[in-house]
């Protein structure tokens, strides 16, 4: 069954819960406890699915409803407000006893709703597991934002349903007297906060923003052939470690450097420099020129460990780019203390790539295109016929890349105390992580782009 099926089920059971409560009074305590337990599960599962879709927590954990109220009234992105509201809705000032298995209609329906949302989370997590790289082509697209706004619209709809249940819950418990009334005060406080907070407004805003978007994730089913689990880059430290690991391995194996490594490195150099110092300096300009030039280079795709090295660089690049241009609700962290370190590693990587570039040119494994442009009748757009030939040191593309890799001005000093400056023996402390190359890599070259050997020899 697909996400869409379970979304409909969750919607149906939440409505059934509200209808079961409407116009009636709460029954035995066991039934109430079952509803309370299932209610918490519903909100927790909505929080989980939101995190899976957003690619992490939009904000750190919300400590209290007071803090949540403040955030909900601020001019925050709608996804952040929705997430904070959902998280705060799970807060209970005191725990309730475990719920029995057999309960009344409301408790059963609410439990089924929580289970349905849980299955939605399980399906999505199979494609985009937290902390890991996507395990399917669908997952790769989801992590890039494909289908996410519309899916968040569905989550917002379920949040609205859950708030409607809370409205009925307050009335349902209103008739309780004596010790029961005191016992239920905690859940009443939680439900009343949810009703009166701006969670409903945040949900409406998220739903409105998703209006008109294709709801593709409703078709998502369980991942059929998951890729191997590989750790994702989710922090600047992990990005730094990934760069250091690649640098270590490629320093020892410069003959493994390919066009893909050069493209990823030059884009990474540009992105990290923007992250460190968002000014148009000569150093930044060299990285920019190199990134543009490297994008025009081609070569044989990396294989085996060289492919793993490319995969690490591309993952570090993906994360760095996401920091430069975060999606709505994506977490933004301060990285001041770590910027000097990632900058240091990129400069070190540049030195490694300089050796690799030399090796790749020497072994005729980099290609540039001589282009002949032809224009179809009536069009202003030209189609290029590219004739690939081995790159030489005289080619602009090679010179621009080499210039950026060679030019490494005085770096920003780390703000960490007692920082030990690397020496030759200390420079490469990280072991290279062997990872499985995943398909649909950002910079992966299609096979038709790789110049064939006949053409290479003919030039």
């Amino acid at each position, binding site marked *: 069954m697909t996400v869409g099926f379970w979304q409909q089920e969750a919607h149906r059971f939440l409505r059934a819960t509200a209808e079961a409560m409407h116009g009636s009074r709460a029954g035995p305590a066991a039934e109430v406890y079952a509803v309370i337990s299932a209610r918490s599960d519903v909100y927790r599962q909505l929080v989980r699915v939101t995190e899976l879709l957003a690619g992490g927590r939009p904000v750190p954990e919300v400590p209290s409803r007071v803090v949540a109220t403040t955030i909900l009234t601020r001019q925050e992105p709608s996804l952040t407000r929705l997430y904070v509201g959902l998280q705060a809705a799970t807060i209970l000032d005191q725990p309730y006893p475990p719920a029995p298995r057999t309960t009344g209609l409301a408790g059963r329906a609410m439990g089924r709703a929580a289970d349905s949302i849980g299955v939605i989370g399980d399906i999505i997590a199979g494609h985009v597991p937290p902390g890991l790289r996507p395990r*399917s*082509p*669908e997952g*790769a*697209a*989801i992590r*890039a*934002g*494909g*289908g*996410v*706004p519309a899916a968040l619209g569905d989550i917002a709809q379920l949040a609205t349903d859950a708030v409607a249940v809370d409205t009925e819950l307050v009335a349902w418990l209103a008739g309780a007297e004596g010790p029961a009334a005191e016992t239920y005060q905690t859940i009443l406080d939680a439900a009343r906060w949810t009703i009166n907070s701006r969670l409903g407004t945040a949900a409406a805003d998220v739903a409105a923003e998703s209006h008109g*978007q*294709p709801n*593709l*994730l409703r*078709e*998502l089913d369980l991942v059929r052939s998951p890729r191997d689990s590989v750790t994702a880059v989710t922090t600047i430290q992990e990005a730094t470690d990934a760069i250091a690991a690649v640098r270590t391995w490629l320093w020892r194996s410069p003959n493994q450097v390919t066009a893909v490594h050069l*493209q990823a490195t030059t*884009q990474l150099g*540009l*992105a990290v420099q*923007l992250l460190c110092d968002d*000014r*148009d300096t000569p150093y*930044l*300009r060299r990285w*920019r020129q190199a*990134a*543009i030039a490297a*994008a*025009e280079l081609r070569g044989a795709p990396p294989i085996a460990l060289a492919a793993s090295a490319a995969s690490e660089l591309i993952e570090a690049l993906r994360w760095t*780019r996401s920091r*430069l*241009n975060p*999606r709505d609700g994506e977490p933004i962290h301060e990285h001041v203390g770590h910027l000097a370190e990632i900058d240091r590693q990129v400069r070190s990587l540049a030195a490694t790539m300089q050796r690799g570039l030399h090796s790749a040119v020497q072994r005729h494994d980099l290609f540039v295109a001589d*282009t*002949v*442009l*032809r*224009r*179809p*009748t009536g*069009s*202003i*757009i*030209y*189609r*290029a*016929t*590219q004739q690939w030939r081995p790159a030489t040191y005289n080619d*602009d593309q090679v010179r621009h890349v080499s210039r950026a890799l060679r030019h490494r001005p005085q770096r920003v000093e780390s703000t960490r105390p007692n920082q030990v400056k690397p020496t030759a023996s200390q420079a490469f402390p990280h072991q290279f992580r062997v990872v499985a190359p995943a398909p*649909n890599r*950002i*910079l*992966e*070259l*299609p096979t*038709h*782009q790789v110049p064939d050997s006949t053409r290479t020899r003919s030039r």
Partner: protein
Amino acid sequence: MRWTPSAPVNNPAPMDYTQAARAVAASLAAGDDEMAAPGALNLAIQAWHQLAETDTAWDRFGLELLDLRTRLYPGDDISVEADAPPGDGPELRAVLGELVEELARHHQRLAANGDLALAQRLEQDAAAHQLRRAVAVLP
């Protein structure tokens, strides 16, 4: 660089950049030229190449486009015959914004194409969002 073709066939005088951007956007909207989408991306990337030194926001824009081109337009065999963009300014950014938005709509139409596999449609949808995010950094 393939911005100005050295010896194109039937080479007329190059179009003004904004004229070319509007023509390609119109072609994208009409859906009458399969080269319009890579042509639009080519024009947008050329704007980054030419104007990046005026504002580092262009680099954020360019990095996103470079990523998109590598993933969805790996052939890179398209070039638009046009002058280099005029100086950076509100008018140029508005024209570019319309062009990129039209390209995003093109990808969103592909995302709604039921003949494609779900992974492909999700990728197209991701591309539409990425384009809108990219152009949003150019106020």
